[in-house]
């Protein structure tokens, strides 16, 4: 087993399920968007900076579900690895704390 603890398998499994279900997520506007539509300020939204996976879809992939799953996988991996970078920083702080005891 790669991970000794069951908890990691729980979160990996849950993350996979959620990413899979995202293909059937409601496409209705969220609360803020609905309020913006109702009170007439929706048009103020700007996309000042472009983004690679706007709308949680990989561009160029014709199958929308597949495009969504690929985007989800990409986002999950990016978030995971960014936190891992933080983890290295935190581990360094722990070593310093341990060594100072």
């Amino acid at each position, binding site marked *: 087993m790669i991970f000794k*603890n*069951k*908890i*990691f398998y*729980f*979160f*990996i499994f*849950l*993350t996979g399920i*959620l*990413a899979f*279900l*995202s293909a059937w*997520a*409601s*496409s*209705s*506007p*969220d*609360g*803020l968007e*609905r*309020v913006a539509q*109702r*009170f007439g*300020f929706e048009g*103020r*939204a*700007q*996309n*000042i*900076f*472009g*983004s*690679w*996976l*706007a*709308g*949680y879809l990989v561009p160029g992939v014709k199958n929308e579900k597949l495009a969504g799953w690929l*985007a*989800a996988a*990409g*986002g*999950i*991996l*990016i*978030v*995971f*690895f*960014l*936190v*891992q970078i*933080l*983890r290295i*920083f*935190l*581990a360094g*702080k*722990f070593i310093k*704390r341990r060594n100072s005891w």
Partner: protein
Amino acid sequence: MHLPDGFLDFKTWLFFDIVSIFLVWRSLKKVNQELSERQIPLLGVLAACIFAAEMVNFPVIGGTSGHLLGGVLAALLVGPWPGFLIMSVVLLVQALVFQDGGILVLGANIFNMAFLGSFAGYYLFKWLASLLNQEKAAIFLASLISVVLAAIFCTVELAFSRVTSFFPVIFVMVGIHLLIGIGEGLITLGIYLAVKKIRPDLIYKS
């Protein structure tokens, strides 16, 4: 509840950007005081899970949807400062990679969803747990209230930016987010209880 660029005026987004930069800096200094070495490996998978959960919008009412925010869940499992940090990473990726939330207003989104969720939500949970002597009810209510609190602050920011009036927008925002908060409460409670069953020793203890 991700604010896009253009919804807040310069002074408002700049203020919250400064506040959130300070909070992130503070969290990097404080996080190892709250986190046990054993919990560090949990951060990555928890952050990834919250990111995935935020993609699963569920219908609430009247053609509106909601999704988990995750601040209370993160704080319950790893503590308020680490919870805030991983929530900030999630929001950063959402804004930069997926255009879900603006870049200039990222500070406001971090404050509303990461800070209020992880801090206000967590300490609300502690207070409710001691008041009600019921952990599950406290988790549910704190999660629900954290979503409503974020909605209130969002409305304040919009009103302060003169994008819309505080009244009657606040009533609609609170009403919708009360319903979304029910989903937040149920999902947070479910995941927390699952972790408690599998590895209760990994759960943050203040």
